[in-house]
C-alpha cells in the first residue's frame, strides 16, 4: 500500500530533518506512529498524503509515486485516495455539520456532489450518531461530536487510505473509545488502510503495528526497518 524509500525531508533551512531509508505499510492494516513531539510523525503523514514533497527519495502509495506527481495530480490523488482526520478536527465554523461532511466534494472539481453523495453523508452521520445534528454548526457540538463529523468527512469519498493525526488527542476517555470504535469498525468493514499518529499509549493495543519514531524502531506485525527520524 505505502512504500517509502530513501526519504529525506527538511523544513526550509531548519535543523529538523526527517530521514527514512525504508518503510512500508501493507494494505488493509492498521499502523500507529508514536514518538516525541517534533520527531516527524505528522511530517510523514503529510508526505504520504502528498501535501508536501520530499527533498529526495520516493513515497509510493497504491503503486503511485505521489512525490513525483505534479500539484494538481497530487491534490486529485489526495481527495480521491486519502482521508484525513486532524487532532483539532479542523471543521469550518460557518458550515453546518452536513456541509462540513460534504466539504471534499465542494472544494475539488474532480468530485461530483449529487444526491447519492448526500445520502451517503447522511448515512455516515447516522452511523456515528450525529444524524440529528446535521443542520447544526460545529460550535454547538461537543468535542466528541466534532471529531465524529471529521471522521465522516474523511471517509465520505471511501478512501483506501485513512491518515489520522492524534484523532483522540482532544477527547475524554468515553469519546476517545467511541471515536476509535467508529474508526476501527469502519476500517475493518471497508478494508481501508489506517495510519495514525498518536501520543496515547493506551490505544496502541488496537493497532496491528506500531512505528516508534524515537529510534525509528518498528514493532508489531511486519518486518522492522531501520532509519532515524
Amino acid at each position, binding site marked *: 500500500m505505502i512504500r517509502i524509500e530513501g526519504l529525506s525531508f527538511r523544513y526550509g533551512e531548519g535543523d529538523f530533518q526527517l530521514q527514512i531509508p525504508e518503510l512500508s505499510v501493507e494494505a488493509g492494516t492498521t499502523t500507529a506512529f508514536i514518538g516525541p513531539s517534533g520527531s516527524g510523525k505528522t511530517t510523514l503523514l503529510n508526505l504520504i498524503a502528498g501535501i508536501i514533497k520530499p527533498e529526495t527519495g520516493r513515497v509510493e502509495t497504491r503503486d503511485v509515486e505521489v512525490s513525483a506527481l505534479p500539484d494538481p495530480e497530487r491534490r486529485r490523488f*489526495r481527495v480521491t485516495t486519502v482521508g484525513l482526520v486532524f487532532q483539532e478536527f479542523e471543521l469550518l465554523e460557518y458550515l453546518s455539520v452536513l456541509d462540513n461532511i460534504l466539504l471534499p466534494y465542494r472544494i475539488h472539481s474532480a468530485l461530483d456532489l449529487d444526491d447519492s453523495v448526500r445520502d451517503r453523508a447522511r448515512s455516515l452521520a447516522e452511523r456515528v450518531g450525529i444524524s440529528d445534528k446535521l443542520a447544526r454548526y460545529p460550535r454547538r457540538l461537543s468535542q466528541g461530536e466534532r471529531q465524529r463529523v471529521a471522521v465522516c468527512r474523511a471517509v465520505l469519498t471511501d478512501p483506501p487510505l485513512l491518515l489520522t493525526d492524534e484523532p483522540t488527542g482532544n477527547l475524554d476517555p468515553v469519546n476517545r473509545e467511541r471515536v476509535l470504535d467508529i474508526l476501527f469498525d469502519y476500517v475493518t468493514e471497508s478494508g481501508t488502510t489506517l495510519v495514525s499518529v498518536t501520543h496515547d499509549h493506551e490505544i496502541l493495543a488496537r493497532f496491528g503495528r506500531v512505528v516508534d519514531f524515537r529510534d525509528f524502531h518498528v514493532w508489531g506485525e511486519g518486518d522492522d526497518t531501520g532509519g532515524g527520524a
Partner: protein
Amino acid sequence: MTDTLYLAWRYLAFHRVKTAILVAAITLIVFLPVGLRVIVNQSSRQLTARAEATPLVIGAKGSPTELTLNTLYFSSDVPARTTYAVASEVTATDLARAIPMYVRFRVQGQPIVGTTLEYFEFRGLELAAGRQIAVLGEAVLGSRAAEMLGVGPGDYVVSSPESVFDIAGVYPLRMPVVGVLDFSDSADDDAVFVDVKTAWVIEGLGHGHQDLSRPEAAAGVLRREGNVVVGNAAVMQFNEITPDNIDSFHFHGDLSGFPLTAVVVVPPDQRSSALLQGRYQTSETNQVVSPSEVMDKLLGTILTVEKFVIAGAVTVGMATLATAFLVFALSLRLRRRERETLFKIGGSRTAVATVMASEIVAVLAVGVLSALVLTFLTQRYGDVIIRALIR
C-alpha cells in the same frame, strides 16, 4: 464555481453582522459623494428653473433668501409681512401684473398658499379634478397635497393651529376642497391653495358669526347702544364658510393694510422690470428681489459647501476603505488554518483563494449595488427630498 460561491455565501451569511457592516461601509463610501452630487445637481436645476420662471418678488425688508424661499417653495420660515397695498401699487403702475401671496399657515404640514386666480395662470397650473376656487373659504389642492392628506373634491381640509397653547390665536378653518391640480413636479404640488382673503380669515382678520339682531343670538349680546350692538364672548363664530353663513363674513379694517408675505411681480418686458426695481430700491419698508439672483447666490454657497462635504466624504471614505481592507486582511490572517485545511483535503490554493476572493468581491459588489440603488432613489425622489428640506 457554484460550490466556491456557495462556500463564500455560507461564510458571509454566518458572519452576517460583520458582512452587513462592511456592506454598509462600502455603500456609504460610494453613495456619499455620488448621492450628494446628484442632490446638488437636482437642487440647482430645480431651484434655478423655478427662480427663473419668477421675474420679481416684492416683500418687506429682511432676508431676500427667506422671502424667495417662502414665495417660491412655501418654506415654513415666514418672512416679515408686507401689505396688500403693495400689490395694489404695482397694479396701479401698469408696469406689471401683481400676484399677492400669503404663505403662513399649514394643513397638517402642507402649506396654505393664499393668492389669487392669476397665480394658477402664471404658473400654468391645470385642474385634474373639480373646479377652481369660486368663493371665500374654498380650497384647491396640489396633487401631492391631495394624496398626502387623502382628500379630493367634496372633502374638507382644516387649517392647523400654529400653537395649541395659543388659545387667543388662530382658529382652525374648515375648508371644502373644490379641485385638485394636475401634477406639475414643483412646490405647487404640495400646496393647499386658497383665496388670499381666506388666508386672512384663517388669521382672524375676517370672520363670520351669528347675526346679533336675531332673537336666537340674544345670549351673545353684551349691550345695545342705539344701532350698535356689542357682542360678548358667547357669540358663536363660524369655523367654516358655507353658503348659509358666507354673508356674515366680513373684515375689520382697511384691506390695503392686510398682510402679505410677498407680491409676485410679472413685468411684460425688461424696461418695466428695471423701472419697478428702481422704484423699490429706495423703499424703506419693502425690497424687490430677483429670485434667480438670490438662487444663484444660494447655489454658490451650496456648491462651496458641497466641495467641503465631498472632500470630507472622500477622506472619510478613504479611511473607511482602509479599515475595510484591514478587516479583510486580518480576517484572511485569522483564517490561515482554514486555508490549510481546505488545501490538505484537496482544494487547490487557487480554489481556496477564489473562495475568499469571492467573499470580498461579493461584499464590494453588494455595497456598490446598494449605493447605486440609493443613488437611483435619490435621483427618483430627489425633488421631494429637496422640497422637504426647504420646507
